[in-house]
């Protein structure tokens, strides 16, 4: 169905680089190796990429893409009525951001999914006429019915797969809980869609479930956020569509080779957000596995790789992991993106060398703990464990402050009163706006990068 090589000929593929930050020195008997792998894509759509990767590039053609806009039209969208109106305006703004030639569709989601434009199981190709017709069709959007997000995603998958394109993406808006479908039903839909298209998910208002929306974005390698005020939807939709239009290559995977006897403890994205990838490994030949990284434009992301190697004698050196970037093809072959990084282990009796922690590893270990402390703190708070919640959110305040994560610190300060940020001493606020708590939970995984 998909032909990767053919797609490449139509797309501007950026040049990828892999950088490894680690302290490779281990003490005698040491086994755990930590590294931050920074993946950077540059030069997509520019003359530079034509020079760097001429075999992947045909001048004069942007990356081919197909986008599905999935708009919640459940009955609750009419309460207040501004919600439906703002959703319509936001979808129109997203349509205006579509580049000419991009395939697109608009789907109305309730307990079932309905094609709003163009219909008949087709995708429209964006131009002035189709954009105008799509916006006209939005007038027919009306609220009524339940919520079964899995059905929306399955329809999006069917429609997006009708086009032979490089990038497949969906933008999903919901205002309520997924009440007309079992969690298993949604899970099955996510499983069947994972790797077939990427999806940004947005919750509007405060009646939706944070873990449902973040779960959709995680599974489909997109972003999640809250739009507490429906008036902010249009701006957010425009930004999301701009980002989607900037994607140049899809289905990139981090291929991790490890030597015999080595265990991969975890692989997680740590910037721009914390995203666990450990369980999403696909075996790729002897001692190698692929971790999905989704679609890429010109951007940079950081990954924390932790492996456990067999101990070796002092003075020994080994390759603990080799990180490379590939695009797996359906026929089992891969497109190698040509960048790799080496994670090494060197055993030394120099205590100063083996006990120091790489600044990048230390920073992102703290950022991951920050995200976890917020989630646990908010869960404990909901469960009524005030002491536990206070301790966890206090730790979060401490970590956010010391790592310079100002955005998260600001969100935390709306949920707790900070007595001593450095010591992590906080009091839970007696009254917390629901939107503030949901914003903190949704954005808890956002990280800041360490200054290099």
């Amino acid at each position: 169905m998909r032909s990767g090589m053919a797609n490449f000929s139509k797309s501007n593929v950026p040049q990828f680089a892999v950088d490894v930050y680690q302290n490779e020195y281990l003490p005698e008997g040491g086994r755990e190796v930590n590294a931050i792998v920074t993946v950077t894509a540059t030069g997509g759509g520019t003359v530079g990429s034509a020079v760097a990767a001429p075999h992947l590039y045909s001048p004069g053609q942007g990356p081919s893409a197909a986008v599905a806009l999935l708009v919640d039209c459940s009955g609750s969208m009419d309460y207040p009525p501004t919600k439906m109106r703002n959703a319509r305006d936001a979808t129109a703004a997203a349509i205006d951001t579509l580049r000419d030639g991009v395939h697109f569709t608009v789907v109305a989601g309730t307990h079932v999914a309905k094609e709003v434009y163009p219909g008949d199981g087709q995708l429209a190709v964006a131009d002035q006429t189709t954009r105008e017709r799509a916006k006209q069709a939005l007038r027919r959007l009306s609220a009524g019915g339940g919520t079964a997000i899995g059905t929306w995603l399955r329809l999006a998958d069917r429609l997006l797969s009708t086009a032979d394109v490089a990038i497949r993406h969906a933008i999903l808006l919901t205002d309520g809980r997924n009440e007309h479908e079992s969690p298993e039903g949604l899970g099955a839909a996510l499983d069947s869609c994972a790797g077939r298209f990427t999806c940004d998910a947005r919750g509007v208002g405060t009646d939706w479930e944070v873990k449902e929306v973040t779960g959709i974005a995680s599974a489909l390698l997109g972003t999640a956020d809250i739009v507490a005020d429906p008036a902010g939807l249009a701006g957010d939709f425009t930004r999301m569509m701009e980002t989607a239009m900037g994607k140049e290559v899809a289905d990139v995977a981090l291929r991790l080779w490890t030597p015999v006897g080595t265990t991969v403890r975890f692989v997680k994205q740590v910037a721009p957000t914390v995203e666990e990838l450990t369980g999403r490994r696909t075996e790729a030949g002897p001692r190698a596995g692929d971790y999905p990284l989704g679609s890429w434009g010109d951007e940079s992301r950081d990954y924390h790789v932790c492996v456990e190697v067999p101990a070796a004698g002092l003075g020994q050196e080994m390759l603990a992991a080799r990180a490379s970037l590939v695009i797996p093809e359906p026929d089992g072959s891969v497109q190698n993106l040509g960048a790799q990084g080496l994670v090494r282990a060197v055993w030394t009796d120099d205590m100063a060398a083996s006990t120091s922690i790489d600044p990048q590893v230390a920073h992102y270990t703290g950022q991951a703990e920050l995200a976890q402390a917020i989630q646990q703190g908010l869960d404990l708070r909901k469960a009524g464990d005030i002491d536990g919640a206070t301790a966890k959110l206090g730790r979060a305040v401490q970590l956010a402050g010391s790592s310079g994560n100002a955005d998260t610190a600001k969100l935390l300060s709306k949920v707790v009163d900070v007595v001593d940020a450095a010591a992590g001493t906080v009091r839970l606020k007696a009254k917390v706006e629901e939107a503030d708590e949901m914003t903190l939970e949704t954005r808890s995984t956002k990280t800041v990068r360490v200054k290099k």
Partner: protein
Amino acid sequence: MSQMPQQAPVSKCPSCEEPLEPGDRFCGACGYDLSVVPAPPEDSPTVVMNGAAPGPGPARDEVDWPTARDSDGQGRPAPVHAAAELPGTDSGGSPLPSQEPSAPEEPAREPGRESAQEHSSGVRLDRPAEPDEYPLQAPAPRSSPEPAAAAPAAGAGGKVCVACRAGRVDRDGYCENCGHAQPRERDHMEQESGPVAAVSDRGLRHHRNEDAFSVGCTALPDGAPATVAIVCDGVSSATRPDDASLAASRAAGESLLGALPRGTHPQQAMHDAILAASHAVNALAAEPATAREQAPHQNAPACTLVGAVVTAGLLVVGWVGDSRVYWVPADRATPPARLTEDDSWAAQMVAAGLMSEAEAYADERAHAITGWLGADAYELEPHTASFKPDRPGVVVVCTDGLWNYAESAQEMAEATPLDAAVRPLHSARVLVGHALDGGGHDNVTVALLPFPAPPQGAGSA
């Protein structure tokens, strides 16, 4: 000012050997800055080792040395010394550490008494038998084959891994099965050149060998043999120490092997060789760091250097840093000697009279080196000295990876095989083995030069 070329006429470019015109400030062929060519150093008087004071003329006269200067370059007569009152100075004019070379011949001393005397005088680097800066237990045996048994592994693609013997080696030099780094060419190096041999080993605790050496033999203008050895130890706290030691040892070796056949006095040649090595290391600082090097080192590449030139009647040593030369006579009844003085913090403190030996060596800065080759060096002070041993023996040129395990001259002599002069390669392996048996905490490099230099072609196989 005293180093301007018009004061120190040079007939050939020290870099490319292009003939020069008087007054040239730069070489017309290679652009070498001739202003850095130093005036000939104030040669230290030649000292007779372990024997009677020399007569007015050289004891052996096979070599037609260039005529000695009769003035010090500033119009004053060159100073005259009796060998007995001047045991030897380096090219910076500093006294040499060891009094043994000039000691009048005397009956062999009892070992115990001799040891006590050694402890009572001069600068020494006494260390506890178990150095306290290495708190870890002895290492596990290395998984790579024993150096003496193995030819250096090429580490190229397609080779079978030496660690697991199951995987093949990838192009980054790691096993595709077990991930282990393969022995690199420099992990263990051996070379024999005529009667001279050197062995260098990574040791048991360091992941790479930052030592390097060069050895060679040549002939003086009259056809008499001369042998050369240079040993360098990369400074680990600087970037690319392995590149520094390799560049320095090569440059110094090439400089000596070029200068000696042209009739340059060996001590002058050694001085020039150290400067050539210094230029080579300084040049590295301008190069971009290799991609492999991700450590946050900021210092320019640096290394120590020690070298020796042996002819039929003369032994010249030169050094910067804390690598050393020892003299081990074939007749072990006569005392051995250390011929170099470390450029180390402790040695300087003692020499300046600021601390007692005990105080200086108890300080944690004791072994910090105060002289090295590299762009970060404050002021290069090449030390050279020449000796005229009156009996056969072997010259041991080594890094601290060896002398840490045989610090005193007596200990070094005991570790050196009796037949070292005739089996230098075997004996160098034995000395490296001595260091590895002691713990191999550092890279180990040793070169052995028999004295006197045997006639060409007479070297052992």
